[in-house]
């Protein structure tokens, strides 16, 4: 399971390996904030609704933290649609992504708070991960590189549509990968709230990928 936990598909990812085995020294945080220590005792509390259930494990915490920054990038991308001349169909899609992922970020932040963990801000940057005293910067799977973000921000109209769909397919595919990796990790997703959140992300985004693939086809003609 080691190499698959944070497996990325986008080209410019810094591949980095983390497993539950190194959970004792694994810290997760946003690049802009000091990395909080999340030792073996954390998450401190199981949710009240699942008191009889196994508590979340570090892979769950990392999934939630990572997905917050992953979603945050989708918000930036989708937020450009109105100002970048997106077609009505793409603008509608972007609006739905904006609304959907904004709500999910709140859910994930609430989950962190409920577990007594530091609540990551919704910022799209790379995650800072500290392992065995070494600090690494990494993008979650499917996240756009700075160059890709610049290209999207520079595009207008039809070209924005094409790039938006291409990049958002990549972005969503990464989210689905994150869920697959979570479910393939020992001890992960034993808490119902995480299982449901991850399943919803996977189901919604898989469906949206299919829709975007259909939408993208006509843009390859120019």
């Amino acid at each position, binding site marked *: *399971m080691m190499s698959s936990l944070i497996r990325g598909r986008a080209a410019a990812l810094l591949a980095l390996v983390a497993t539950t085995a190194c959970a004792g020294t694994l810290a997760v945080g946003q690049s802009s904030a000091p990395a909080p220590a999340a030792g073996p005792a954390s998450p401190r509390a199981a949710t*009240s*609704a*699942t*008191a*009889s*259930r*196994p508590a979340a*494990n570090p892979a769950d915490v990392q999934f939630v933290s990572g997905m917050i920054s992953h979603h945050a990038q989708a918000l930036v991308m989708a937020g450009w649609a109105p100002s970048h001349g997106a077609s009505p*169909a793409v603008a*509608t*899609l972007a609006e*739905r992504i904006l*609304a*959907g992922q904004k*709500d*999910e970020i*709140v*859910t994930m932040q*609430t989950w962190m708070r409920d577990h007594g963990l530091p609540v990551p801000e919704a910022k799209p940057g790379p995650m800072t991960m500290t392992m065995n005293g070494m600090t690494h910067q990494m993008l979650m799977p499917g996240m756009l590189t700075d160059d890709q973000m610049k290209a999207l921000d520079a595009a207008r109209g039809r070209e924005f549509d094409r790039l938006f769909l*291409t990049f958002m*397919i990549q972005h969503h595919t990464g989210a689905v990968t994150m*869920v*697959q990796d979570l*479910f*393939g*990790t*020992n*001890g*992960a*997703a*034993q808490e*119902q*709230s995480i*299982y*449901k*959140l991850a*399943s*919803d992300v*996977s*189901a*919604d985004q*898989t*469906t*949206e*990928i*299919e*829709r975007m*693939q*259909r939408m*993208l*086809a*006509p843009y*390859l*003609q*120019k």
Partner: protein
Amino acid sequence: MAFDLSASRAARAAAGRHAAPLLLAGLSLISACAQSTGATSGGPAPSTGAMSAQAPSPDPRVGLRAGLMDAGEAAWNLRVVSKTPPSEKFLGGINSDLAFTKNYVIQGSFNGYQVWDISNPRSPALRTAYYCPASQSDVSVYKNLLFVSGEDLTARIDCGAGGVPEAVSKDRLRGIRIFDITDIAHPRNVGNVQTCRGSHTHTVLVDPKDSANVYVYISGSSQVRSEQELPGCVAATPDKDPNSALFRIEVIKVPVAHPEQAAIVSSPRIFQDLVAPARHGESPVDLAAAKRRADSARAVGGFIAKIQGEDVVLGNGFVKTRIDSIVKSRGGTTATAADSTALRTALPSIIAALVGPEAKAGVPQPGPTQCHDITVYPAIGLAGGACGGYGLLLDIRDPAHPTRIGAAADSNFSYWHSATFNNDGTKILFSDEWGGGMQPKCRTTDKPEWGADAIFTLVNGKMEFQSYYKLPAPQTSSENCVAHNGSLIPIPGRDVMVQAWYQGGISLFDWTDAAHPKEIGYHDRGPVDASKLSLGGSWSVYWYNGLIVSSEIQRGLDIFELVPSAFISQNEIDAAKTVHLDYLNTQGQPHIAWPPSFALARAYADQLARNDGLAPARLTAVRQALSSAESASGAQRKSALTQLASQLDSDVGSASDKVKVRMLEGAVRDLATITQ
């Protein structure tokens, strides 16, 4: 306005019901009306009058007090019969779907399931609280068998509480558990069927031609599990491995006498060759033009890609970018013929990466790989499949081999969740569970066509979109709210449904006019927690033998009953209550047949009054004739009813609602037939 019914007309309708003195009828009407007004606690008082066809305004669902067990409540045209908190082991769990058998309701929970005896609906009695954790514990019954879905990673074969921490484990149950509930207080686990993606929901299909077996369709959109955990589970797509667990559903055949022999008998690929439905496609003229463009481009060496079955000429910008990258990768500066050839070779995989693989037999197109839920309606041989980005219409006359006969997609739909047919099978309603049920999608900022129902008419097996229906009361950001599970209410001659909207409460609506669905009743609570979204609300609400039963995620089991209103008369409620089911799985939709009754005839008369379908003087005479027939007996009653039926036959010509007059005539004739 289809429901412009004045109070005086309602009073006339009520007065005509019995031969009893008008005064008495008037009194009963008043007491009924008192309960039909919007009743609230903890919210602003409604300003509507009794029997008003106007919904209470301002909407009392707005601003209800928060609380787990003491939240403010608002109700309109529904009365709370009982509210029963979960039993001890199920407190703090997540209640899910419902199934019914005899006088019992079986309530699924992520902790297992509870069986309630609702013989006395004012005080449901717990028969068993069966602890056996799994999500979502979707439940169905057939005779002495109970089926329970398991999908998540923690469900244990031994029903234990420890979860299954190992990514691969022989202890895990993902699929269907089968219980013998002959002694309902002591269920026995008589078999399990494991599936590759687990069972998010399932559908019990009773084959009218096969009484020895019952079929279970498994729906589940989760990841395919490891082959090491369950041999034969292949996560690769069907073009890479024909045994793929994707792009199919599972059909389990359960021998009723030997449920332990239940096994998967087929895995129909109902998504095969699914292409975007016609309403999003090109016209024949466009297709012909596209072919001409492709042919002429091909003649001059252009780059053509097959995209969704269509030859598409790739644009210069697209081609140039790819050629440049090939040139760059070999360290060159100018493109050569070899670079073009390299691009032609690589093109199918480049296109496949962007928009999915080329359409050919056995190769899946972008589209759903599973269904969330399938509702079968055996009486008409059809099923509605809510599958990812599509609503599918399936032919299920061969239960083990369902085939797709129609598909709809909708850019306003995020995730097709479930389906309900109307009783005639002329309409189908799909719900969109945008956000998966954990998100607040009913705020004023959320669009009315998002996270809603979509209503289609069914004409010659084709689905035609008519309208959206969404809970009309705005909810707070602390309330998860989106379209969820509901069922028909058997009001004869109309399509009326009650539906759960999580913390949006339950909504009663009429979709007889498919283009103009309208809310006619509701019940709602304030949020579980005002400060943050705490998962709660009604997961499912179904009509069962006169009661409206709701599974509240945190608060337990709620039971309601209809109260008469401008929209639903007492006669219509009485007629609905004549329908008796021995059991109910909402995903196995029963065909409703109304036994002959005076209530049925009067219900049609009330509907004719409501829509001015028959002249008022004639309706008065019809009601008088029904009353005197009811007070008569034997040959006298038979003769009176036969005479009334003949009169109604001659009324048809001048009636503005001929169809309904015919239905009334039929109801009267049936009454005459059964009169000895």
